[in-house]
C-alpha cells in the first residue's frame, strides 16, 4: 500500500509569509527530537490534546516532551495521506466513518497505519507514549478518545483526564462563576502533580510562573498579528495563519513559541507598513469558520481569484489567550491558566455568546463581507449550531454565510470541484451585493 493508491485530488495551499514556510522544518525537527528522546530515554513522551493544557507539560520541559496527535493528523491531511489510515480505523478498528476524523486517522496510524509506506509528517509520531493527558478544552469527545486509547494500551500508560466545564448560556466570559474557576484550578493542580509523578521531576512553582509568562508573551504577539490583519489589504490570509497555530498548540508556555510569534509579528507588521498582502487589490474580506479541510488548504488561495482574502478565522483563536478582559498573569498562574482553558474554544461555551459576541464581533472588527462555515460531520460540538449561526448573522448583521460540509482530515467524501463551484457562486453573490450597495 502506498500513496499512489490513494491519490487525493485536492489542492495544497501556497504560502505567502516567510515565517509560515519555517513551520514544516520545525515539525520535522520536532518529531526527530521525539524519536531521539524515546530512544535514549532522556525525556518522557506524553500524548496531549486540547487547547492549551500543553502549558502544564511544558512546566516539566526538562523531562517531558508533549506530542499532540491532532497536529500529526493535520500534518497527514496536509500531506494528503490520510485515506489508508482512516480506512484501517474503520475496517480493522471497527469505528464508524461518521466520527471525528482526527480520532480515526490517529487510531488507524496506531493500529497498523504506521507500517505503511507513507510520507508521514516529520517521519512519524511515536506510537507508544509514556503517559497521556486528555482534556476537554476543545471537546468532550477527546475524553472518550483518550479513554479509548487508555484501553488500547491495556491500562499500562498512566493517563490523566482533565475536564474543562462547558460555559453555559447563563454566563458571559467576564461572569464566570467561582465554582467553574475553582474546579478548573483543582484539576490544574492535580495534573501538575500527575506530571511530577510520571516525569520524576519535582514541581517548581517558579517554572510554572515562567511558563505562564511565555504563554502570555506568545498570546500577546499572536494577538498583535490578529490586530495587524485588520489592515487593508490584509497582510496574511488563512492559507498562512491556519498553519501558524502549530507552535502555540505544541509549544505554548515555551520560549520557542514566543520566538516564532515575534518573527511572525515582525514580518506581518512590515507587510502592513509596506501596504502589501497576498492580494494586492483586495475587494472581499472573508471569515473562515471552524476547523479547515487540512487536505485542501488550497481553497484559501482559490478565493484570491476573486480578489478575496480570508482575513480571519475562528479556529485560530482557540489556542491562545484572546478572550476576556483579564490577561495571563504570571503572579496568578493557576487562575490565569484556568481562565485560558475556560475561554479557549468558543464552541465550548454558550452558542448565544459565540454567535452574537464572538463571530459577529469578528465580522465587525475585520470588516468581513462573507463567511465560509465548514460543517464537520464528525465534530458535533463545533458544527451542530452553524446553520443557526448562518441564520442569525444574515438576519441580525446582514452577513451571508456559505456552508460547506465535510471532515477536517477525511477527503474521501469531499468534492473539490463542487466546493469550488459553490465558492464561485458565493463570490458572485457577494459581488452583486457590493455592486447594489454602491
Amino acid at each position, binding site marked *: 500500500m502506498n500513496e499512489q493508491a490513494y491519490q487525493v485530488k485536492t489542492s495544497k495551499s501556497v504560502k505567502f509569509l516567510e515565517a509560515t514556510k519555517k513551520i514544516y522544518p520545525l515539525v520535522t525537527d520536532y518529531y526527530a527530537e521525539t524519536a531521539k528522546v524515546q530512544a535514549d530515554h532522556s525525556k518522557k513522551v506524553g500524548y496531549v490534546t486540547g487547547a492549551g493544557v500543553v502549558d502544564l507539560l511544558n512546566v516539566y520541559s526538562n523531562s517531558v516532551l508533549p506530542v499532540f496527535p491532532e497536529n500529526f493528523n493535520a500534518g497527514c491531511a496536509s500531506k494528503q495521506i490520510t485515506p489508508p489510515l482512516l480506512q484501517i480505523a474503520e475496517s480493522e478498528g471497527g469505528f464508524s466513518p461518521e466520527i471525528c476524523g482526527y480520532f480515526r486517522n490517529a487510531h488507524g496510524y496506531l493500529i497498523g497505519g504506521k507500517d505503511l509506506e507513507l510520507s508521514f509528517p516529520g517521519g512519524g509520531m511515536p506510537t507508544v507514549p509514556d503517559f497521556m493527558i486528555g482534556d476537554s478544552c476543545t471537546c468532550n*469527545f477527546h475524553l*472518550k478518545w483518550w479513554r*479509548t486509547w487508555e484501553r488500547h494500551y491495556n491500562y499500562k500508560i498512566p493517563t490523566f483526564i482533565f*475536564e474543562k466545564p462547558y460555559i453555559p448560556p447563563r454566563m458571559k466570559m467576564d461572569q464566570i462563576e467561582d465554582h467553574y474557576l475553582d*474546579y478548573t484550578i483543582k484539576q490544574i493542580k492535580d495534573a501538575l502533580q500527575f506530571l511530577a509523578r510520571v516525569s520524576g521531576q519535582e514541581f517548581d512553582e517558579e517554572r510554572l510562573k515562567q511558563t505562564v509568562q511565555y504563554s502570555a508573551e506568545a498570546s500577546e504577539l499572536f494577538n498583535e498579528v490578529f490586530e495587524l490583519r485588520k489592515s487593508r489589504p490584509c497582510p496574511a490570509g488563512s492559507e498562512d495563519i491556519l498553519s501558524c497555530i502549530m507552535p502555540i498548540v505544541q509549544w505554548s508556555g515555551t520560549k520557542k513559541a514566543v520566538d516564532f510569534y515575534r518573527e511572525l509579528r515582525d514580518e506581518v507588521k512590515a507587510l502592513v507598513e509596506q501596504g502589501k498582502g497576498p492580494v494586492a487589490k483586495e475587494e472581499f474580506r472573508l471569515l473562515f469558520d471552524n476547523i479547515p479541510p487540512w487536505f485542501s488548504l488550497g481553497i484559501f488561495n482559490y478565493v484570491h481569484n476573486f480578489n478575496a482574502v480570508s482575513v480571519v478565522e475562528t479556529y485560530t483563536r482557540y489556542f491562545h489567550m484572546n478572550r476576556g478582559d483579564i490577561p495571563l498573569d504570571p503572579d496568578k498562574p493557576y487562575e490565569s491558566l484556568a481562565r485560558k482553558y475556560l475561554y479557549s474554544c468558543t464552541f465550548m461555551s454558550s452558542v448565544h455568546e459565540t454567535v452574537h459576541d464572538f463571530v459577529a464581533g469578528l465580522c465587525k472588527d475585520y470588516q468581513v463581507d462573507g463567511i465560509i462555515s465548514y460543517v464537520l460531520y464528525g465534530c*458535533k460540538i463545533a458544527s*451542530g*449550531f452553524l*446553520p443557526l449561526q448562518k441564520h442569525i448573522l444574515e438576519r441580525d448583521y446582514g452577513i451571508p454565510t456559505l456552508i460547506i*460540509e465535510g471532515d477536517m482530515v477525511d477527503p474521501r467524501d469531499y468534492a473539490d470541484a463542487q466546493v469550488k463551484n459553490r465558492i464561485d457562486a458565493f463570490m458572485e453573490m457577494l459581488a452583486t451585493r457590493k455592486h447594489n450597495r454602491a
Partner: protein
Amino acid sequence: MFENIMERLRSSYSVSISENPAIANWKQQQKQVFGYMCHNFPEEIIAAAGVLPVKFLGKPVPVIEANQYQSTFMCHYGRSVLELGLNGDYDQINGLVYAYGCEGGCNLFQILMETVPKNYQNFLHIPHNSNAKGAFEFYLAELESFCRSLREKLSCSLHDDDLSKAIALYNRQRELLKKIYELRGSGNNPLFTGLEVGEILEFVVSTPKEEANELLRQLIATAGQRSSKMFSGPRLLIQGTILPDLELYQIVEELGGMVVGDDLCQGSRYFWDLVDETVAPLVALAKHRLERLPCSCMSSEKVVEKRLEHLLNQVKHYHADGVILAVQKWCDATQMDRPFFIEQLQDKGIPVLSVEVERTVGGSQFYTRLEAFIEMIDVNSGSKKKNRLGGGGVE
C-alpha cells in the same frame, strides 16, 4: 384487571407534549411544566419546586424546519425534538432545562432555547469524569446555583424538606420500576412484555410521579393474575440511548422473541440506582448523578467496563440469548463504544446484532436482519433453545 390498568396508563399520557392529557391536567391547576432532554438532568429539583418535569421523547417525524438551524449530522431523536418545538408542540411548556450530556444535545438544546424560547431556561454542566478532583464540589455548587435561580424566578421556597420529599417520591418510582423489570423477564410468559415496559417508561417520564406511582403499584399487584402470551423465540436485550418509538419491541415480539431487559437511557439507566435518602438532599443528588449507572457520554475511569459489567449482569440475570446494539446514527459517544461492546460480547459467545437507528429502527430491513439474527441464535444454540422452552427466566 391488568389490561384495564394498562389501558388507563395508555390513555393518561402521550409522547406528544401538546396532546399529553397529564400536562393539560397539570396546567389546569395553574402549575408550570418544564421540558428536559437528558436524564443527567436532576428533575427531582424542579419537581420539588412544584413544577412538572417532562422528558422530550422525540417522535419519528420527518425533519424539515429544524434543518434551518441544526446541522443534519445529529441523531434523529435530537432533531425531532427541535422539529416538534418549532412546529408548536411545546406551547404548553413554561421552561427548558438541560444538563450537558452529549455534544450534539448540548448544541441542540441551546438552539431550542434560541428558537423556541421559554420564560425559564437553564443549562447545567455535569462533570463527565466523575472521579476528577473537585468534580463533586463543582456539581454540588452547580445544583445550589440552580436552586437559587429557581427560588428567584419562580418565587418558591424550595427548602431541603421539599427536595427530600421529591427524592423519596422518585425513589419509590425507581423501586416500582425495578420490580417491573424483575417481572418482565420471568419465564416464557412474562408478566410484562417488552412492548408494555416500553410504554410504561414513556408514561413515567411524561406524567406526575404521584399518579404514575399509583398506577405502577396497581399494575404490579395485578400482573400475577394476567394471562400473558407465551413466547418461544429468543430472549433479547437492547443497548443504546433512546429509540424513536416502540417499533423495535413490537418487531421482536412479532418474530416470536421478547425484549427482556435493556441498557438504555430511556430504560434501565433512568431508574437503576437509588438516591441516598439519609444525607442532605443536594449532596445526595450530586452524588447520585455522578455515580449512577453511566451512559456512553461519561468518561470516568473504566466507565465502559462498568457499562459492560451491567450489560453482562443483565444477560445472566435474564438468561438473554442475544443483545441488540441499537445505536443512533451520528451518536459519537455510542459509536465510539460500539467496537468494544461487539468484541466483548462476541468473545463471551453472546450473539450480538448491531443496528443503526434513524427516524425508524429500520422497518422491513430491520425485520429481515432480526429474522436472520434469530435464526442464527436458534441454529447456534439448539440446546439452549430447549432450555428456554423449559422456562428460562430471571436468575
